[in-house]
């Protein structure tokens, strides 16, 4: 699943860089406080120098180098998330509406939904394990957004527009998906399940319309 792996790799890398930078600034600040105390004890006034052009230029150069690296890794990760999409095994139209979800499995008569109020009867988006699934995400009224935190992807659902994303879930399981765009009063209840099942089970689901 590219979204999860690209996220993990980049998040780890950039978080490490962030911690290093944070640490350096803390060290510099603490050092400056200590140095100030030392100068105070020696009865020295504050330094007069207000420029160090060479140092500043060198520092700016290092910053530029870091930024180039960060940009390249950002582009690379984004390209992994949105490659030329593989031919999907199944295409599902995911429709958000106030305030629940509806799934239509293209090329079949199967449409499923559920109850978003309360956790008992949430809609379930069924997908086959290990096969690319194309989600055509749209909405009927206002903006919504599909977010599956476990698999690290999110896509807005616009009324009158279809956004597409291809996901491949590698293992069996059931994960919560949430609406991630303010869509009105019951936004906070607009959840559904993403469930990955073996391809055979999935085919049976498509035939019978029942999980």
């Amino acid at each position, binding site marked *: 699943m590219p979204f999860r792996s690209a*996220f993990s790799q980049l998040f780890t890398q950039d978080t490490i860089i*962030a911690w290093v930078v944070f640490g350096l600034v803390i060290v510099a*600040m603490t050092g400056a406080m200590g140095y100030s105390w030392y100068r105070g004890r020696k009865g020295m006034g504050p330094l007069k120098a207000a*420029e160090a052009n060479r140092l500043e230029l060198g520092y700016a150069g290092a910053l530029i180098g870091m*930024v180039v690296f960060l940009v390249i890794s950002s582009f690379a990760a984004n390209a992994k998330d949105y490659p030329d999409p593989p031919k999907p095994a199944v295409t599902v139209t995911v429709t958000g509406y106030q305030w629940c979800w509806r799934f239509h499995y293209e090329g079949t008569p199967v449409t499923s939904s559920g109850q978003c109020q309360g956790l008992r009867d949430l809609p379930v988006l069924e997908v086959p394990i290990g096969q690319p699934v194309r989600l055509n995400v749209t909405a009927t009224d206002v903006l919504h957004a599909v977010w599956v935190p476990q698999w*690290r992807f999110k896509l807005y659902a616009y*009324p009158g527009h279809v956004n597409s994303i291809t996901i491949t879930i590698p293992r069996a399981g059931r994960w919560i998906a949430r609406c991630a765009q303010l869509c009105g009063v019951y936004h906070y209840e607009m959840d559904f399940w993403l469930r990955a099942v073996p391809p055979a089970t999935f085919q049976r689901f498509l035939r019978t319309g029942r999980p």
Partner: protein
Amino acid sequence: MTAPVKVVPFPSPAEEERDGLPQWLLTTDHKRIGILTIGTALFLFFLNGALALTMRAQLAQPNLHILSPQAYLQFMTQHGTGMIALTITPLAIGLGVYLVPLQVGAPRMAAPRAALLGYWLYVFGSLALIWGFVTPTGGSQDGWWGYTPLSSGAYSQGEGMSLWTAGTFLAAVGMLLMSATMLWTALRMRAPHVTLPRMPVFTWTEIVTCLMVLSGFPSLLLGLGIVAASRVDPARFTTNGWNIAYQNLFWFYGHPVVYVMFFPFVGCVAESLATFTGRRFFGYKGTVLSLLVFAAGSMSVWGHHLFASGQNVNDYFSLTSIFLTIPAGVEYFGFLGTLWGGRFRYTTSMLFALAFIPQFLIGGLTGILVANPAIDYHVNNSYFILGHFHYTLFAGSVFGFFAGFYLWFPKATGIMLNERLGKLHFLLLTIGANTAFIPMFFLGYDGMPRWMATYPAGAGFTTLSLISSIGAGIIGLGMCVFALNLYESARAKVPAGPNPWLAHTLEWSTSSPPPRFNFNLTYPVIRVHSYAPLLNLRERALAAQQERREA
């Protein structure tokens, strides 16, 4: 060698303004307009903060219904729009309206009636938003973005959203007018010897802020035009094109505005650090250049709010957003260079400025994280983002504001603030802010979306939410101490004198509070040789003293 330069004929004391309420509300004195703006914004800060505390109370435990979902969304919208459009932006602009003419040696600001018009538009805009709460359907529930079509007449009936549209528009026009007059003052009305490279860092931050306002805010006005029209005639605005147009127009304002709420406070921190280390601000040229590049570049990053929209040039906006690391890094170099070799005085202002550095850094570094589309696909619209921008706006900008507030309060009022209460205020705010906002990163990472009126038990959000709510409570306590400090200092009336902190910039050479036209025969505009003119004078006096001692 430091002969006072007489730029203008000074008015007699009789011409100075009287002190009644009408004189204040109809003032054309930039200092009074500035104080009115900051005062109004601080009042709204308490109001919008109280809303946040109520929301945090609701979120302290799962399935709480202290507020109905409708009321929660109304509080949330008012908290967002209120803090951004009616509080922190006006604080940023108001500080400049007060200080910029003083710092550049101008006797008054350009087009003061336009600035007064701006202030009143801001006041009427704020009133319109608050009015929403007493209408039958309550205030707007659509978040501070006011995205269409949710905000259109079809999905948000009632006056609340209309009043939001009106109020946001009025306040934005108000800020535009104030910025335009301030920019003109800084660029065209400086005392002759205050050349651009002799302007204090704070004035530079206000100049780039004004430029961002002038190029970003008109876009919001256009966007609000779409919202207004879609409230009158929702059927005409159903296509995707209008929605994506609104989102681009909104964020073309919405991203620069977060820097509008940032740069002036960078200026506050810079002046505070320079003052309380006794050093010239370090790396002035690099900092000024980076401010220009940073602010100009900040116009190009708005699309990073739309990474998950599927209708956005993601790579470009990732490039520009990460690029901003360079000028931001240069500014940090200036901060640290100023600290190095200084003689620290740990005043309340200095403490806020020092805390700004690592705390804003957390906001900035997590900002680099979310500038990656591959990371944003996960954390976009989650509590991670809330953590990120509360670190920039509260732990950063508001701390920077207080660094400036404690620094310049004696200048504006002529009396000192209580330092002991100030330090207590600082301590509570620091503990509270970090307790409230650190858990948000983890909540978002674990899958908690924004805008949730409540959350189910067993979703894994309970403990972290409770910690965050406790932090919010501590912030509330800190703000009570701040209010107490204002009351206590107004009662004690410890006189400040012209320059209680031994600060470096021009406004400290005049009386506290300054006369009607900023400088007069007793306090003339001194000759300015650098961006720290008073430090120049002190150093020269010190050198002369030493010479005499040696001789």
